[in-house]
């Protein structure tokens, strides 16, 4: 018994040593500053997650004593978390409600994003959808692809959860414009990734996701809406209707010299905006 424990301990120590060496880093990590230190918890939207995680990784390279974690429970939870102090920076993929602004939440727009309509690639032949058809599907008025010239099959509608910023943006740009509400017969998914993998694997499915998730699942395709392709350029020239700003949130104004200020400045910098583009979102300054 003792022997086994000793062997296990030695193995564990050895593996810790080997694994810890796995970190590869090229020579010449430029300026290392030690002015910030400590653990910071950020959190919020699943859409903004890739940007914040990637930015946090670069940020931690600049300030090696800083540890930033990111939880992704959704936009609303991100705002709540920022207001409650659970997160020192919250993230949301929708604009703040007036009640949240009154409570002291301050938004910083860091990127723009469009919401694309995605279909199951193998079973739905359409590559273009009229906005009014999308609205009709999500309002529950059209329930069969046949009505749109497709195969005779029930439309499987996927929608996001109530906490989602993508949902509220999509709602504002679609069903809300005709004063309708979402159909009750939609399956609810809880993240963009969940959305594309479900739509990609369910025959006759329709869903929507941020541009960053287009093509992440080989079984999905993003369709043009009113013949306008979902591209960053079309969001910037405002021809693509379904778009929103991605924001970071703090409670009260930024404290000068704080890590939060440095982090938001970093995302707004040229390098930070490059990360935004890398993650297939639209830089705010362009």
């Amino acid at each position, binding site marked *: 018994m003792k022997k086994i424990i000793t062997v296990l301990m030695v193995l564990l120590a050895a*593996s810790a040593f080997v694994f810890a060496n796995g970190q590869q880093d090229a020579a010449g990590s430029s300026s290392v500053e030690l002015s910030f230190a400590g653990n910071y918890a950020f959190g919020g939207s699943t859409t903004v997650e890739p940007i914040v995680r990637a930015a946090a990784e670069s940020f931690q390279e600049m300030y090696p004593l800083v540890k930033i974690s990111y*939880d992704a429970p959704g936009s609303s939870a991100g705002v709540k978390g920022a207001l409650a102090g659970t997160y020192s920076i919250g993230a949301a993929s929708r604009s703040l409600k007036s009640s949240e602004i009154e409570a002291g939440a301050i938004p910083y727009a860091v990127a723009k994003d469009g919401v694309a309509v995605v279909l199951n690639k193998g079973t739905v032949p359409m590559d*273009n959808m009229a906005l009014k058809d999308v609205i009709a599907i999500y309002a529950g008025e059209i329930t069969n692809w046949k009505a749109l010239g497709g195969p005779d099959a029930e439309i499987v509608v996927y929608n996001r959860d109530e906490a989602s910023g993508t949902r509220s943006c999509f709602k504002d740009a679609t069903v809300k414009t005709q004063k309708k509400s979402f159909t009750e017969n939609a399956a609810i998914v809880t993240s963009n990734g969940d959305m594309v993998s479900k739509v990609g694997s369910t025959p006759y499915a329709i869903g929507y996701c941020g541009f960053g998730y287009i093509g*992440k699942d080989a079984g999905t395709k993003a369709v*043009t809406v009113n013949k306008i392709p979902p591209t960053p350029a079309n969001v910037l020239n405002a021809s693509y209707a379904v778009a929103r700003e991605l924001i970071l949130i703090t409670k009260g104004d930024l404290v000068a010299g704080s890590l939060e200020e440095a982090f938001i400045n970093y995302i707004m910098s040229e390098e930070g905006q490059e990360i935004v583009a890398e993650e297939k979102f639209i830089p705010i300054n362009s």
Partner: protein
Amino acid sequence: MTGIDVLKNRRSNTVQSSPQSRKINRQEIIAKGIICFFTAFTIAILVWIVGYLMVKGFRYNNDVSYDVTTQIEREIPLDNTDEDVVFIINSKVRSEDIPVAGLRKLYNKARKENWGFYNQQNLKVVPFAYEGAGSFSDDVMNFILTGSDLETYRKNVSQTSSWEDMIHRVGQTPGALGFIPASKAEGLPKSVKVLSVRRISLIVSPSVLRIQDGRMMREISQADADKLFSGKVVNWKEIGGIDLPVTLVFWDSKDASSIINRDEPVLAKIQIVHSEEDFYSSIVNTNGAVALGHYSSIESEGLSFIPVLRHETGWNLTWHFIFESPARSGQWGGVSYIILNTFFLILFTIIFSTPVGIMAAIYLVEYTNQGRLMRILRMGTETLAGIPSIVFGLFGFIFFVQICGLGIGFISSTLTITLMVLPTIIRSSEEALKSVPQSFREGSLALGASKLQTIIKVVLPAASPGILTGIILAIGRTVGETAVLIYTLGSNYDLVTGPSSSARVLSLHLYMLFSEALSFDRTFATGAILVILVLITNLSTTWIVKGVNKNASV
């Protein structure tokens, strides 16, 4: 028919075979057949599941959409120099070829580019350049630069002093990238390899990408692209496009003859042009036109193109994946920290749960009378063992995280899992202790040992195989646990550094990769590691129990 009758019949079977006994024989055979069938079926399903997970975990098999075709060029001709250029990289970089747009980004981005975008390897790109070779260097720079970003280029690259110096430094620096003239590319050292470039695109007339009846051409497989340029495709309809005749446009007749196979008749329309201007204008103006052209001309001339799918396959679960640390939400690097976190979680869970569990079992078996209270207690542990883990997760979140104020992190999750596996350990230890013959205890007591001595020196060693089995079952449950950890462990993928640090274990990582659609290949690879880990745990159970039994009998 009663059992006695059956026995009678079976006995009589040897003497004489009555119709009744034959009937029973038949029934036996059929029953045996059905049992065998279901056994085989179950085994086949199990093998299939594990096999599927393993195949998917070890190999990836994808069609990836690129702006360029699969054609690779090792040596790239330059505009004003006769000498071709060859791009070289450090051998540690796991790339063989790269689209030309990617190559330009490696040199020109405001932020240091990472190889992760091209091969999921978390490694910074270190570009090298040599400006001392006159017009050759200028030409290469013109090839790499896109427009007016000379400043970023200058900021990014490190200058070398000669071609030999370039080769040497690329070989020394992980993630390095450089270029040399083709004549120097012979006999490169092992630490340096050539990076081929893919820069031919499928340029089409905008008419091909029109939407017709709600459908449009989105992308094309390499096989269809080849078919297109062998002249066999007359209409875009045949390869998934709209109803439009195909026209192949070629720069000159030499180009045309090199691509089209002469033995077979060419069915598609062909247009041969002789100047650059004609080439672009005829692509744009001819309905259904398609041509092979350089990717750079798409940007400069504002042309349309069709993305081409490349079939990519290779090893998924590699040593790199196991030994590299995760980056970019788990899209790059590997799972080393996550494997370690899993081990730490198991270790601390066992440290917390084993002493408590065994002591509870000893109390239940050795020190109490089997009364009503005991029955209630036993029922309690059994119920706890059957409660879904998400309920423990909820409890852990409310009690440890919020009420005790431990926060989401390692200690909260370890304590919650400890509570979850305790019933398993108590139950199996109890059974093991009960199975120790009463004569052992009586013998020990008769020799004058106290009760405590008897338990420690006699009962526990005899029961140890059973207790160990329980512990390993608990390990198995810890490895596979996800629901509890979502609420108590958080989702950070760094190495655990303290009791309050948020972390990820393998099962949680798998869940995150899947639910965020980050990478299905990596999800399966993580799944394969989990399967292997559970397999090792189970094998070690038999191994340890065997070893302990041997020791006990000696």
